[in-house]
């Protein structure tokens, strides 16, 4: 395991410092905690949007902080949900007096820590609600599904709704609409390595790959012999097509962090070809690293069925470095 880091326990705070130093026009930092907020502070009257989770998913979530998307991102230790006190700082930094919506990926840890923070914030007189994203179709039981790359669409669309002046209830409603329709599935040919322990998330030999991975170095739900990306795309799409009907969709081919962009575009080439042949219209397309898992080599495909409202929010301006519009 080789990491380009200093002291592993300082990784997250050094990363956050680096981000804020590099982009002071976009980012501020809540003093003393690993919480990134907007450089210009909470916007008075606007519903605040907070997301976060473990670190290691960059550009998620700090990359989505900026005018038109999130107001704060809470950066936990690598692959470890942030604690309630940290999330509370994020909520305070995002609060513009009109309530705060938390966008939470569906993991026991994240849900519990964000809920605890919401309770603390309510105690401080801040109106808080939350939406849970569970888009990973690799898990068959819907309640247990993980929140993965589809979360970025929730950020973008809810962010644009909040920026347009919608109320907390309205922003929550559109966020839930996205969350309930978006579907993703991922795979990897190489694992990622945990910075503190130095260990890979799983061991794979040269001829194997993992299908249905999570974004925390977890093994997939199935291990298979490696194959052309053409067939891998067939495999992932066969699951996604069961839950998203043909029609107008936004598609995202998301890199897991260690995947060359060339491979993502080759992958996208096959995704587009197959989806169009199956009657889908790719109305919006996103190819790149959006929700990663350190240096994992792999990708995920996300589909979001679109209507007018979601499309216009997707297209709305955004100053977030990870989703410039």
């Amino acid at each position, binding site marked *: 395991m080789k990491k380009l880091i200093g002291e592993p326990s300082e990784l997250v705070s050094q990363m956050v410092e680096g981000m804020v130093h590099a982009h002071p026009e976009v980012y501020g930092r809540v003093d003393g905690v690993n919480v990134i907020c907007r450089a210009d502070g909470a916007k008075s009257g606007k519903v605040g949007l907070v997301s976060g989770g473990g670190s290691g998913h960059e550009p998620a979530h700090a990359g989505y902080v900026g005018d038109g998307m999130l107001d704060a991102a809470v950066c936990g230790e690598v692959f470890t949900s942030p604690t309630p*006190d940290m999330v509370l700082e994020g909520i305070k930094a995002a609060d513009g007096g009109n309530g705060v919506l938390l966008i939470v990926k569906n993991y026991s840890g994240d849900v519990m820590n964000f809920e605890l923070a919401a309770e603390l914030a309510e105690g401080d007189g801040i109106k808080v609600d939350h939406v849970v994203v569970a888009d990973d179709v690799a898990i068959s039981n819907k309640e247990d599904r993980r929140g993965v790359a589809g979360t970025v669409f929730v950020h973008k669309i809810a962010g644009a709704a909040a920026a347009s002046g919608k109320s907390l209830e309205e922003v929550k409603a559109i966020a839930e609409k996205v969350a309930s329709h978006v579907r993703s599935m991922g795979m990897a040919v190489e694992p990622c390595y945990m910075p503190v322990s130095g260990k890979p998330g*799983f061991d794979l030999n040269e001829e194997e790959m993992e299908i249905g991975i999570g974004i925390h170095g977890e093994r997939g739900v199935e291990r298979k012999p490696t194959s052309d990306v053409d067939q891998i795309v067939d495999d992932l799409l066969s699951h996604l097509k069961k839950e998203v009907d043909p029609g107008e969709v936004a598609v995202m081919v998301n890199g897991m962090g260690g995947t060359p962009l060339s491979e993502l575009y080759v992958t996208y080439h096959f995704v587009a070809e197959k989806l169009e042949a199956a009657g889908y219209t790719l109305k919006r397309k996103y190819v790149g690293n959006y929700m990663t898992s350190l240096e994992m080599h792999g990708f995920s495909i996300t589909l979001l069925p679109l209507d007018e409202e979601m499309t216009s929010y997707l297209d709305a301006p955004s100053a977030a470095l990870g989703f410039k519009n």
Partner: protein
Amino acid sequence: MLTIDGMKQALRDAQVGIEEQKDTLTDLDRAIGDGDHGINMSRGFDAVSSILDEEYDSLGALSKKVGMTLMSKVGGAAGPLYGSAFVKMATTFGEAKEADFTLLKEALQEGSNSIKARGKSEVGQKTMVDVWDPFLEHVQQGDDYQKQLDELVQKTEDMVATKGRASYFGENSRGTVDPGSLSSSILLAAIMKEVD
């Protein structure tokens, strides 16, 4: 009798135990989770050990501080679970400066319930609940606590997880001990040792 100093000693022993088993906890979590449980617990109990030099008026005050510390240092799923367990135990202990077996057991039972409530979990899902709940249901003063706990931990090996990250692996989660059950047994054993 469990005194304030006894509880401090238990927490110090728990820290040592966690540190010793750090890699095992991480490896178990690596197999059926995300490989951070040892790291999370070690960070949390490190922080706990640094608040033990302070003075506390009561078992309640100490437990509350431990709970808040775990909550704000462990992160992940284990943080809020252990954190709220201690916060809940604090309510039961209240102003008491020491606890007999009955009071301790009652406090731990409240802690266990709080874990189940926070985690929306129950016995049989291959989580730390499978140690806390049956242990507290059956334990009697003077039992071989360690043996009982070891057996409960071992029993999680053959379970299929339906809560927490291990549930993503479905049937494949069978065959590995739940990491949270092991860290729970370390903690509970350390506490029980001090009550006799």
